[in-house]
C-alpha cells in the first residue's frame, strides 16, 4: 500500500514538472527539442497534446539511456556494448569510442543459447550462404520458394507433431497477416487481456468482433463463450460463423503460462477454434523442448493453429504456423505474407534447420551433462553435507540445453524469491519479471546494473500498466552457474541500494486469479 502511494507521489511530482517544462517550452523560455508542428500548422488539430506524447516528452526522455543501447557482438550469454554519453539530458547521445566488454546478458531472448558465432549451426549457415547467397529477391509465391524452405517446413511439422507447417520471414507479420486470412466479418475473436501487439493488430485488421477476457481466467472465458453461443451476433442474433480463441504460450511481460488443458476443454465443449502463439514458449518449455503443448503433455492435434517464432529459441528470425494440411494449403494461397512479403533468407533457414535438428537430438552430437541431484536435499540437510552427488549421463546436445535452461530457471527464481523481491509468473517460465513500481527506480536500476556490467531490460508504460514497471530477465541455457551467481549477487546489492525488496510474504501474487476473488487481496500492503 505504501509502495503504491509513493509511486503515485513520484508520478505526481514528475507530472507537475512536466507541465512546468511544457509551459516554458511554449513561452520560449526553454529551447524545444522534440517534435512540434510547423508554424503554418499551429491552428490545425493538435498532434502532440495527448497523454502519450506528454509522457514521452517529459518522463521517457529522462530515462531514455536505458533503452536502444547499441551492442557490437553476438548477443550470447556475454555481450559487448558501445558506451555512450549524453550532454543534454538524453536528447542526443555521443559515443565515447570505448566498448564495454563482457556484459552478462540478461535481456536477450536467447533461451537455448543458439546465438553463437561458432558451432555446427554457424558452420552450416556459412556453407549455405556460400551456396545460395543472402537474398532471395522474390516473394514466396513467385520465385522465392527454395528447396530449403520445403525442407524447413517438413522439419517444423515433424518437430511440432502436426500435419503441415508454413514458415514466414517475420514473426510479427506472421500474426498480423494471417489472422485476417483466417477470420473476417461475422466471426468472433476472444483474446486475452495481455496479448501481444501483433495479435491485437491482426485481430483488428481482420474486421471480426473482438471480446477480451481477463488474463488466464477461465471463468471469464467461459462466460464470454456462453454469451456468444446463446446470444449470437449483436443485432441480427445470427450464430457466429467462427469463434477463435487467441492465447499465448508464455506472456512475455508477465512470465505466466497459459492454462492450456482448461482452454482445450472449453474449446471442445463450445466447439470453437484455438490459436496458440508460442513465441516465447517453443523450445523453452517441455521436457523435450517442444513448447507448452509438450509441457502439459497434451495432443498437438487439439490445438487448431499453432503459431510460433524462430527468433527466440532458435537464434534466427521468422515465424511459422502449423496445423492441418487443408489449413496450411489455404494459407499458402490466401495469406498476405505469402503473397507480398519476401521469403526467408537461406542462411537463416539453415540456422533454423540445424537448431531444430539439434533440439530433436538427430544430429548425433552427445554431451556429458552434469546434473546436480541434490538441489532439494540441500535445503533439508544442514551445511554438513558438503559434497553433492553428481549424475553423469550422456545426452544429446539439444536435451542438455533444454535441461540446462530448466535448471537455470528454477535456481534463478528460487534465489530471487528468497532474497525478497516480488517476481511475477509461473515457476517454470524462463521469463522473470522483477517488480520496480517507482519511476525513478526504472532509470536507476538500468544504470546501476550497467555500472556493474550486467545488461538488463527495464520496462515501463506503455508496455505495462503505469504503476507496475518492472525489470525483465530472460534466462538462457548459455548462462553458467557462475554467471547466474554473479548476476544474483549484483541484483542483491542493487536491491539493497534501491530498496527493491518489497515482498512481505513468501507467496507471490499471481495475476491470473479466479473470477470471484479480487486481485488485491493477497498483495503486499
Amino acid at each position, binding site marked *: 500500500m505504501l509502495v503504491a502511494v509513493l509511486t503515485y507521489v513520484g508520478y505526481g*511530482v*514528475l507530472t507537475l514538472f512536466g507541465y512546468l517544462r511544457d509551459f516554458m517550452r511554449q513561452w520560449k523560455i526553454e529551447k524545444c527539442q522534440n517534435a512540434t508542428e510547423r508554424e503554418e500548422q499551429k491552428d490545425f488539430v493538435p498532434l502532440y497534446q495527448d497523454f502519450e506524447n506528454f509522457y514521452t516528452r517529459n518522463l521517457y526522455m529522462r530515462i531514455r539511456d536505458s533503452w536502444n543501447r547499441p551492442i557490437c557482438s553476438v548477443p550470447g550469454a556475454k555481450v559487448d556494448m558501445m558506451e555512450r554519453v549524453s550532454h543534454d539530458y538524453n536528447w542526443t547521445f555521443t559515443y565515447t569510442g570505448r566498448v564495454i566488454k563482457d556484459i552478462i546478458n540478461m535481456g536477450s531472448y536467447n533461451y537455448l543459447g543458439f546465438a553463437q558465432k561458432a558451432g555446427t549451426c554457424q558452420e552450416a549457415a556459412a556453407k549455405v550462404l556460400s551456396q545460395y547467397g543472402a537474398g532471395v529477391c522474390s516473394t514466396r509465391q513467385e520465385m522465392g520458394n527454395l528447396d530449403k524452405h520445403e525442407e524447413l517446413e517438413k522439419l517444423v511439422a515433424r518437430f511440432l507433431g502436426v500435419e503441415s507447417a508454413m514458415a514466414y520471414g517475420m514473426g510479427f507479420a506472421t500474426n498480423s497477416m494471417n489472422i485476417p486470412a483466417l477470420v473476417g466479418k461475422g466471426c468472433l475473436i476472444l483474446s486475452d487481456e495481455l496479448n501481444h501487439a501483433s495479435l491485437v493488430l491482426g485481430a483488428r485488421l481482420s474486421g471480426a468482433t473482438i471480446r477480451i477476457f481477463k488474463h488466464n481466467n477461465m471463468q471469464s472465458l467461459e462466460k464470454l463463450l456462453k454469451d456468444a453461443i446463446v446470444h449470437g451476433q449483436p443485432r441480427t442474433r445470427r450464430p457466429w460463423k467462427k469463434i477463435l480463441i487467441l492465447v499465448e504460450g508464455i506472456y512475455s511481460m508477465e512470465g505466466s503460462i497459459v492454462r492450456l488443458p482448461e482452454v482445450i476443454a472449453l474449446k471442445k465443449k463450445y466447439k470453437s477454434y484455438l490459436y496458440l502463439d508460442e513465441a516465447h514458449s517453443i523450445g523453452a518449455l517441455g521436457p523435450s523442448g517442444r513448447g507448452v503443448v509438450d509441457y502439459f503433455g497434451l495432443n498437438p492435434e487439439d490445438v487448431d493453429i499453432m503459431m510460433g517464432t524462430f527468433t527466440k529459441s532458435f537464434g534466427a528470425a521468422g515465424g511459422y504456423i502449423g496445423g492441418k494440411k487443408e489449413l496450411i494449403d489455404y494459407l499458402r494461397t490466401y495469406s498476405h505474407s505469402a503473397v507480398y512479403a519476401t521469403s526467408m533468407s537461406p542462411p537463416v533457414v539453415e540456422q533454423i534447420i540445424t537448431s531444430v535438428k539439434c533440439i530433436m537430438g538427430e544430429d548425433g552430437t552427445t554431451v556429458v551433462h552434469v546434473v546436480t541431484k541434490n538441489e532439494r536435499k540441500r535445503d533439508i540437510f544442514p551445511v554438513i553435507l558438503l559434497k553433492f552427488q553428481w549424475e553423469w549421463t550422456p545426452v544429446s546436445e539439444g536435451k542438455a540445453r533444454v535441461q540446462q535452461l530448466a535448471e537455470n530457471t528454477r535456481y534463478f527464481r528460487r534465489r530471487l524469491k528468497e532474497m525478497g523481491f516480488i517476481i511475477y509468473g509461473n515457476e517454470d517460465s524462463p521469463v522473470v519479471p522483477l517488480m520496480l513500481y517507482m*519511476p*525513478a527506480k526504472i*532509470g*536507476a536500476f538500468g544504470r546501476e546494473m550497467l555500472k556493474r556490467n550486467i545488461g538488463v531490460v527495464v520496462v515501463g508504460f506503455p508496455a505495462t500498466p503505469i504503476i507496475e514497471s518492472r525489470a525483465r530477465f530472460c534466462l538462457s541455457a548459455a548462462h553458467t552457474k557462475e554467471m547466474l551467481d554473479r548476476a544474483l549477487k549484483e541484483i542483491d546489492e542493487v536491491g539493497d541500494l534501491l530498496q527493491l525488496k518489497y515482498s512481505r510474504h513468501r507467496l507471490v501474487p499471481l495475476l491470473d486469479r479466479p473470477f470471484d476473488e479480487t486481485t488485491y487481496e493477497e498483495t503486499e500492503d
Partner: protein
Amino acid sequence: MDIKNLKNYLYWLFCQFELITCSYLMEPWEKVLFYTFNIAMLFMVLYTAYIYVSIHISTAFQFCLHLLGNQHENAVSIVK
C-alpha cells in the same frame, strides 16, 4: 567509526528520498526549485507548529483547570 556509519546511513536515506520523489531524474535547476519548495514548506509547517501548538496546549490546559475549579465550587455549595 560510528560517525562514518551514520553519515553513510544518512546519505542512503537521502538517496531513497531522491528516488521516491523522482528528484534523481531531474536536471540541477529543477532539483534546486524542488528542494527550495520542499524546505520552504517544511519550515512553514514547523514554524506554525511551534507558534500555535504551544498556545493551544496552554489554553486547553487553562480551560480544563477552570472546568474542574467550577465543578469543585458547585459541589461544595450543594453539599453545604
